[in-house]
């Protein structure tokens, strides 16, 4: 799905003639209007996030007896800068436990998804086989079937096989929705790797495993790393499916945040949210960088050759 193109097609091939041709696509006034509209759209996209982040540093005095009173301790007025809410996070044992759970689940699910998704990406990119289309469909379904349905189905399944809900069931669920993303991202990367290189390695006497280890894997590595980062982010952020399959004591960070939200808005939530958003932004930025890297790894020259081929 275009989820993948969202990270794998950063600049595209155009822009080259961008400004020169722009006039044909829209006159001066229309163009300014569209620029204004775009600015407004981005304002709409980012203003809430920025407000949320800014107020995580707001030094509002904690309201007395705030427990249970929604919104206690957080006003919409700027009261001065503070790190108080962040330092308070460090003393919240429940939160730290949730962070630990999320990191564990994220790491395990990412490792499993990469181990399972990379080979299937290789199969789709390099081989023709019966069941190719079925495989593609199977990889697409977990992404497009609504999350509520996936969560409910997994809950039903774990109940039927009498598997007690725990962190392990959460990992299994996350692996399910992560495999497709790994397969799609890695496959897109492999599509950009010249299969002739593998052919050449084989001609030079490398066996299939050696070819994979010394040619395919290094070339696909940026894609695999990017996929791992994306999938880790998805795992850390997932609420819907996790809410169905997490057992007692398997509270992940989003589950914990949700439970706080149901009680009321507090500055600590702003602080956790800010940290989580920051982590997401960093890992997405790194993933984007990795995917923009020209295939062949040979730096500028390889990139230029490739671009020339494209034209």
């Amino acid at each position: 799905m275009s989820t993948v193109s969202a990270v794998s097609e950063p600049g595209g091939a155009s822009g080259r003639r961008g400004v020169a041709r722009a006039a044909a696509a829209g006159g001066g006034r229309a163009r300014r209007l569209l620029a204004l509209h775009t600015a407004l759209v981005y304002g709409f996209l980012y203003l809430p996030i920025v407000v949320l982040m800014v107020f995580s540093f707001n030094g509002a005095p904690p309201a007395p007896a705030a427990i249970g009173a929604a919104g206690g301790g957080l006003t919409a007025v700027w009261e001065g800068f503070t790190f108080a809410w962040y330092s308070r996070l460090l003393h919240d044992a429940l939160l730290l436990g949730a962070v630990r759970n999320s990191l564990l689940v994220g790491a395990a699910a990412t490792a499993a998804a990469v181990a399972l998704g990379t080979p299937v990406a290789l199969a789709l990119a390099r081989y023709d086989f019966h069941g190719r289309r079925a495989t593609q469909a199977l990889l697409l379904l977990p992404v497009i079937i609504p999350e509520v349905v996936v969560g409910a189905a997994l809950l039903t399944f774990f109940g039927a096989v009498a598997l007690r809900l725990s962190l392990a069931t959460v990992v299994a669920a996350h692996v399910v929705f992560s495999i497709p993303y790994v397969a799609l991202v890695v496959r897109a990367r492999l599509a950009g790797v010249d299969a002739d290189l593998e052919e050449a390695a084989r001609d030079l006497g490398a066996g299939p495993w050696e070819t994979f280890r010394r040619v395919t894997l290094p070339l696909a590595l940026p894609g695999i790393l990017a996929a791992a980062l994306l999938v880790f982010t998805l795992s850390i952020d997932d609420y819907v499916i996790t809410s169905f399959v997490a057992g007692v004591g398997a509270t992940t960070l989003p589950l914990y945040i949700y439970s706080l939200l149901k009680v009321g808005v507090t500055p600590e939530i702003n602080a956790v949210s800010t940290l989580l958003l920051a982590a997401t932004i960093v890992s997405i930025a790194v993933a984007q960088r990795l995917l923009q890297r020209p295939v062949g790894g040979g730096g500028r020259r390889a990139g230029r050759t490739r671009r020339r081929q494209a034209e």
Partner: protein
Amino acid sequence: MPERAAAPKPAGRKRGRTAYALALPAWLVLGIFFLLPLLLMLAVSGGERELYGGVKPVADLGAYLRSGAWAANYARSCAAIYARIGWRSLWMALATTAICLVISFPAAYYIALLSPRRRKNLLLGLAVIPFWSSFLIRTYAWMFILRSEGLLNHLLLGLGLIQRPLQLLYTELAVAIGLVYGELPFMILPLYAALEKLDRSLLEAAADLGAGGAARFLRVTVPLAAPGIAAGVVMVFVPSLGQFVVSDLLGGARSMLFGNLIQNQFAAARNQPFGAALAFELTAAVLLLLFAYALYAGRHGGEEALL
């Protein structure tokens, strides 16, 4: 879609058994933890719930099937209260999709065709971040803004536009805002991907032939962007239909959506069979829609349009 023109195409894909060995682990895991649960849920949807939330065992399957009792949950889902929630979800999803499309199209057009290169990369990067960020937190941001002591009310009070705080949070309006906000990046990106491929010389040709701005837009741009519009519509409409976080956090008692209904059956109501039936109705609707999309994309975008 990630199939880039720049990619040197493999001369031809190999045949061989290796492919099966490579695909097998993923098949197994997805088969056990995805397909099997879905099938199991389909079976459960024909069952009846036990007093404490389990599923009543069926002694004689043949007789049970003939009796038509398996359809009870589906029949129940048509009752007025559930049907009303279904309609509301449908309307909300349609409205969300339409609003996202109207807001996103001009922005995607600007990014793809009019913005200078450096700015284009920046804008794209900025569109990708919310795409991958936590839906939960992005929804929370609106709780923070819309609540009675929140920023918006403060602003309006401060400007003297209102005398007492408005009830903005826990309303249908809040749910609508949350849905549009949450889904917007999923519309911008596919639209951008389609518009980016648009051959600008066609617009020039249309202009040379005397087509005005409106005519160029309606008769050249929109038809050429249609695959992106279709993809964006699917990517926004489908998740909106199954949404329950936004309505749970931003909505009140009366803004319950179909997703909440399903979630309730598995959580508070402990009626798995009924929840399973509802989940299947949603799945069927989604699959029908995707099937229509696949037919459309197959005609317009070649075999791997969705991938």
